[in-house]
């Protein structure tokens, strides 16, 4: 991802595409898109990944998380035709050289989160998946509790604190 951002590395983009485009397509199909629409939108999503590569901050999101947010916004756009208000960016943006250690710890946290999600009882995991496919009402979402978010939350919080400190 960083090779794409810094060097416009097409080889690196090709391997990101191979890994994520088929999953974005699957995600959009599970969200209710037809295979043809999902294929087109997966291409759009990957094009956005290339264009906005410079905004990716590995101390605050994994590549999968970042691509998820792009795919989700595209889904809201095509399936609901609603506008998607996004939070204002932090004014200082990602650091020019993301802290290697922070990025590594975030990566480990993310892997732990994936493992915890995979280990949930089937019905609970299915409920969470359906929520992210946009298939649950807000009332149903309120029933989702106990997401294994503990470690990753404090990690992201630390990253935000560090960003703040670079300002003072």
């Amino acid at each position, binding site marked *: 991802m960083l090779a794409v951002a810094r060097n416009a590395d097409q080889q690196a983009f090709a391997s990101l595409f191979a890994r994520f485009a088929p999953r974005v397509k699957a995600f959009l199909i599970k969200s209710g898109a037809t295979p043809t629409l*999902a294929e087109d939108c997966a291409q759009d999503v990957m094009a956005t990944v290339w264009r906005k590569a*410079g905004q990716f901050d590995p101390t605050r999101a994994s590549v999968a998380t970042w691509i998820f947010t792009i795919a989700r916004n595209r889904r809201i756009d095509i399936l609901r035709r609603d506008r998607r*208000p996004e939070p*204002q960016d932090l004014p200082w943006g990602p650091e020019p050289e993301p802290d290697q250690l922070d990025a590594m710890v975030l990566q480990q946290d993310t892997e732990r989160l994936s493992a915890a999600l995979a280990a949930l009882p089937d019905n609970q995991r299915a409920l969470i998946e359906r929520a992210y496919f946009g298939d649950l009402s807000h009332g149903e979402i309120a029933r989702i509790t106990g997401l294994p978010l503990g470690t990753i939350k404090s990690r*992201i919080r630390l990253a935000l604190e560090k960003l703040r400190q670079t300002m003072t």
Partner: protein
Amino acid sequence: MIRHHLSDSLLTGYSTGSLPEAFSLLVATHVSLCDECRARLEAQDAVGGAVLESCEAVAMSDSSFAATLALLGGATPEREKPAPSAGVFPAPLREYIGGDAGSVRWRPVGGGVRQAILPTAKGASARLLYIPAGTAVPDHGHTGTELTLVLSGAFDDATDHFGPGDVEIADEDLEHTPVAAPGEPCICLAVTDAPLRFNGLIPRLLQPFLKI
């Protein structure tokens, strides 16, 4: 110092993209002001990333990579994000107003209270409220969920004090009379997914006019 934050279910709803647009606007505006909820939201998004990664791949067509490169038309990745513009209101709100605090098209709704309805998709409505210092919003209950985010000034009701950045989450069980704190007017963003129930006679007559 923000004391009243978004609930987990609102953050999950925003992260999964299931909230009505008006509610998403309020969440995005609060997150713009609150590092704690931003961190909680980014953690929720990480669950979305894990779900995406666990999706069983559906093959793309053979020409899809070439087609994507064609979409890009030789564009190079943007090096960094554009500097966010500063303003009195957070950026997502400014986009819906079409300008900053000075561009709000206020309409008087009686008792010195002013409001401006923001254009959002059906299912929920969003409006800005301007309540003069010391003035009460008519006593009312809720048939659905009402979220109120204070942008400037403060208000009090029987439950607590709400200052800048605070969110009050009111549901069907709450009947309240929010009163703007003395000193300065209270400006807030209020979103509802159902009409409010006013208890006095006059406000009920006003209701169609208030469009809430």
